[in-house]
């Protein structure tokens, strides 16, 4: 194979990479359509085409489902693990596009660019989950990260957004650099770039305790932990989540999580499985720190996005458990969890985006009395919070069940106990949000305000004066530094998304069988495990 690759270009299986190509092609088309002057093209056609691109990518991934091979001389894998990742990323992308309809960010960054960057990031994520080679892994990661740095800063008038983009850029670059250094060390120790060749070299040459190799593994752990926001490498998460525009935060929270966790699975449970004695305890320690730090950190948060940021740190800790145990059950558990996490998080962000448009801030107090004003939103957010907490009859319970089972089965029962202690803490903040939702609305909020001026820097400062705005085109006015006025923004996509995701949380919680059967297929991707 290697000589062949040296002499002529490798065979390219176009069908195999079709789901990836759909995203890239979509980004080009969207970028061009965004240049048209017609309002219809920019405001309607661009999001529609973006959704089509995501949907096409999902469809092509499902079409390729039964395939089980590697593409382009082993650079990319075409197996259920990669494809399920593509599906998860596609779902996250569609949700993010729906959330962006009528939002400020795409208008400020121009619709074409905004959506094209989202598609490129998704393509990077899709590459990242399929990567079977250190080079493609890094390429995918950078392709995922760089558009996200930009997207975080798209609300140009808002200092927080710019700050978030810059912070993400600096911390993300440190993460990428660490990862790259780790890759270099692994390459130095094994002389190989392919995952399977690395695994082979580790087992045949007895590199399980080679200092160079272990140094590389340690740096890879740190680099990926930055990306997946696993404590103690999570410090950027709350600030970036809070500062970035909410649709971007939603995309970051879901698509990046899917990509990073699947990359974790593939890298550690395939390539580096021979050194599991070294990274097993380290990852277990990281997972426990993430669960505790994330859940305790979320306790004092009054901003919903910050709260979800800390909660995502904790959730990353739960998902890592499946990686740590290094069994097929563990892989299935992590994949199942990350998919359900997408659904639950999307429901939450849909409601937060809607509340943010209504009240101008994302504080927990923006949700007070939502149960009266918007029962559908309130129910969806309730289900999302209960699901993230892991209450039975939601899909979160089943997901947690799987993780705990894989931990008990893999001899990591103590980690399962840390997990439940963490989720016990998490109930405090999730339930506080739920209680706020169904509490009596504060006086004066009975009429849903359509227009408000709010100081974004101080999320708790809700303007109490409401001005009736004529329904119609959304408009943005800059009223002083850092103050946003969002008027008459559409709520329909948020409602639809919230209802669909909320229903999925319950339906999958009561009938988890079909999704679980699908997830069982990912075992094919990790044949070396028990």
């Amino acid at each position, binding site marked *: 194979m290697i000589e062949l690759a040296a002499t002529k270009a490798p065979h390219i299986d176009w069908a195999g990479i079709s789901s990836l190509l759909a995203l890239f092609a979509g980004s080009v088309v969207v970028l061009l359509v965004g240049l048209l002057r017609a309002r219809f093209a920019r405001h309607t056609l661009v999001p529609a085409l973006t959704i089509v691109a995501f949907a096409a990518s999902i469809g092509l991934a499902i079409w390729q489902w039964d395939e089980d091979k590697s593409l382009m001389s082993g650079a990319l894998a075409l197996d259920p693990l990669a494809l399920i990742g593509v599906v998860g990323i596609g779902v996250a992308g569609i949700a993010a596009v729906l959330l962006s309809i009528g939002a400020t960010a795409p208008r400020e960054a121009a619709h074409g660019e905004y959506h094209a960057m989202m598609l490129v990031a998704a393509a990077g994520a899709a590459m990242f989950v399929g990567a079977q080679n250190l080079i493609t892994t890094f390429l995918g990661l950078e392709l995922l990260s760089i558009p996200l740095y930009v997207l975080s800063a798209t609300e140009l008038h808002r200092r927080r957004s710019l700050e978030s983009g810059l912070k993400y850029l600096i911390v993300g670059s440190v993460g990428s650099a660490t990862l790259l250094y780790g890759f270099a060390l692994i390459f130095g120790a094994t002389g190989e770039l392919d995952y399977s060749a690395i695994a082979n070299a580790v087992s045949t040459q007895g590199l399980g305790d080679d200092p160079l190799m272990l140094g590389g593994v340690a740096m890879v752990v740190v680099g990926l932990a930055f990306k997946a926001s696993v404590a103690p490498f999570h410090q950027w998460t709350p600030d970036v989540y809070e500062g970035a525009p909410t649709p971007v935060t939603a995309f970051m929270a879901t698509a990046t999580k899917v990509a990073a966790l699947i990359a974790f699975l593939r890298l550690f449970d395939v390539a580096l499985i021979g050194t599991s004695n070294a990274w097993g305890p380290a990852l277990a320690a990281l997972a426990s720190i993430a669960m505790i730090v994330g859940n305790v950190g979320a306790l004092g948060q009054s901003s919903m996005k910050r709260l979800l940021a800390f909660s995502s740190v904790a959730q990353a800790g739960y998902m890592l458990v499946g990686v740590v145990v290094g069994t097929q059950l563990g892989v*299935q558990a992590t994949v199942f969890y990350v998919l359900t996490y997408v659904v639950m998080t999307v429901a939450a962000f849909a409601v937060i985006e809607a509340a943010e448009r209504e009240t101008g801030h994302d504080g927990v107090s923006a949700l007070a009395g939502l149960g009266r004003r918007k029962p559908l939103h309130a129910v969806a957010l309730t289900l999302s919070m*209960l699901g993230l907490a*892991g*209450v*039975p*009859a939601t899909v979160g*319970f*089943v997901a*947690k*069940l*799987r993780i*705990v*089972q894989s931990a*008990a*089965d893999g001899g990591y*029962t103590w980690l*399962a*106990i840390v*997990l*439940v*202690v963490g*989720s*016990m*803490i998490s*109930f*405090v903040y999730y*339930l*506080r949000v*739920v*209680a706020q939702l*169904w*509490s009596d609305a504060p006086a004066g909020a009975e009429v849903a305000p359509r227009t408000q001026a709010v100081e974004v820097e101080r999320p708790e400062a809700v303007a109490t004066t409401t001005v009736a705005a004529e329904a119609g085109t959304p408009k943005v006015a800059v009223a002083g530094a850092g103050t946003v006025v969002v008027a008459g923004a559409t709520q329909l996509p948020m409602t639809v998304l919230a209802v669909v995701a909320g229903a999925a949380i319950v339906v999958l919680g009561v009938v*988890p*069988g079909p999704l*679980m*059967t699908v*997830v*069982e297929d990912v075992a094919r991707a990790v044949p070396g495990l028990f």
Partner: protein
Amino acid sequence: MLHLSILLWLPAAFGLLGLLVPSRSARWVGLLGAVLALALSIVFVLDFDAGGAQYQHVTDTTWISALGVRYQLAVTGLNVWLVLLTTVGFAFSMAWISFTELGTHERAKHVVLHLGIAQSAVLGALLAQDLILFVAFFDLMLIPFFFITAQFGNGDRVPATIKMIVYTLVGSLLMLVAAIAVGVLATPSGQSVSYNLAEIAARGVPKGSQGWLFACFAAAFLVKMPAFPIHGWLADGYKAMPLPILAVFSGVLSKVAIYGFLQIALPLLPQGTADLRWVVLILAVLSILYASSLALTTFNARLVLAYSSVAQLGFITLGVMSLRPDGASGALLQSVNHGVAVFGAFLAVAILSKRTGGSEDLRDMGGAATKAPIFAVLFVVVTYAVLAMPGTANFVGEFLILRGAWEGTAPGLAIVASLGVALAAVYALRLFIRGSHNRVGPTVEPREGTRPELALLAVPVILIVALAFHPQQTVDAADDATARSVLPAAARVGESHVEKILRSDPELARLTPPAAFSSKAAPAAAAVTPAAEPATSGSASQSDPATDPNTGQQVPSSGGGAGTTVQVDPSTGQPVDPSTGQPVQTEGAGR
């Protein structure tokens, strides 16, 4: 064919139905659902065959095949009366709500929906024969109470209810881990994981792990009751919850914890139970003493009842952990009795506090006996039940429990625990006297309870009287089942413990092997097994849970002349149900 799923989901379905009607009539939909569930559960109780199969009305389908979790429901001797208690309690609560402001609230739909979900969850926890299903329902049943309290509670309700949830979840989530670990550890290599309770009991959990697993389960159940050092949520939670909801919460939900001990902790983890039972016993006795003394000193009427519940549950735990069939049957009987008495007691407190203009302070009450005679008469019956007056079924229950504790643990423990009986008389009478006799408080309106209130209060009174006349029915249904759940653990405590049990009741030897989970398999089929294998020597009592048949084997043969055993032997040959029912009654008469 009666289907358990109908009973299970009926309340939740009506709760959802309540969303579709106008707010004002939601309560009637909820009440209809609760009454239908009550009727259905009465049918199940009447249909229950005390001497018949261990599992009746079995439902068994796959739920999550990848995890080996199945949707398995059955009526057993352990749960049949608790199911009835549950439906009675929720129907009572729903009826109570329908004439209070909760029922006429503009968001009454929420109350109806959440109570419906709660009822389905409690019924699910009671009926589940799959460990994970049990855990799921056990965790779920708390959430509706959070919603109701957070929306409609009193005072500083959100922190109080979050505290309550987090406290109870500490135990519940540890139990989740323990449940999964039990299933995984019990699975022999090469076989698929099963969480069926009978299957796990038959496979056996490795003895080395049973200690911490039992501790996790015990933590879940003890917090739920709650027991002494882990009762921190109790006072705040009870104060925040609306009274009609509190009645069912206190009367029904804590019993699921008792049921959990009998259904899960004891049979699945006999070794762990035997090793750690003294910890639980001492906590139970401490709970009795501590809670009784608090109930004596607090002036808040709700908290008197709250702490009296803690003391009562301490008693019940004592009965369960005596690891004797009589103690455990007494515990089940007492669970039903206490539930019924608590329904009445909370309603009485509500009526009293209405007289004082909303205050629940004992010092503000008084004078009900002269101004509200009908109420006072009903209240005194409830009081008698709470203090376990001889003549009530509560007395029978406490007697059985104390007897079990005397024989099964240490006489000293039973003596200390019986102090609690005396204290119960003091605090229950204090509540009654403060409410009905004493100097009339400054703000008391001298009026009788309203008609619906009195009619509703009459329901627990009638039930208390009925139970007083027929305590035997409950015990009959439970006898075989409790013996099945305590015997394996009793065996691990020591041979002498089992011998003592079998000496007092030689019948029980036939129950020791775990029966397969199916309604088809009559108990007789399982009972043949020990008789067929007398060759296994008595020394093997370490290796598998079915060993004590050996010890059991000798006793009936030596006591074969007792006459009662003769009636069993035909029943082991063929599944003739009345013949098995017969000896159970003679045993009851022996008490």
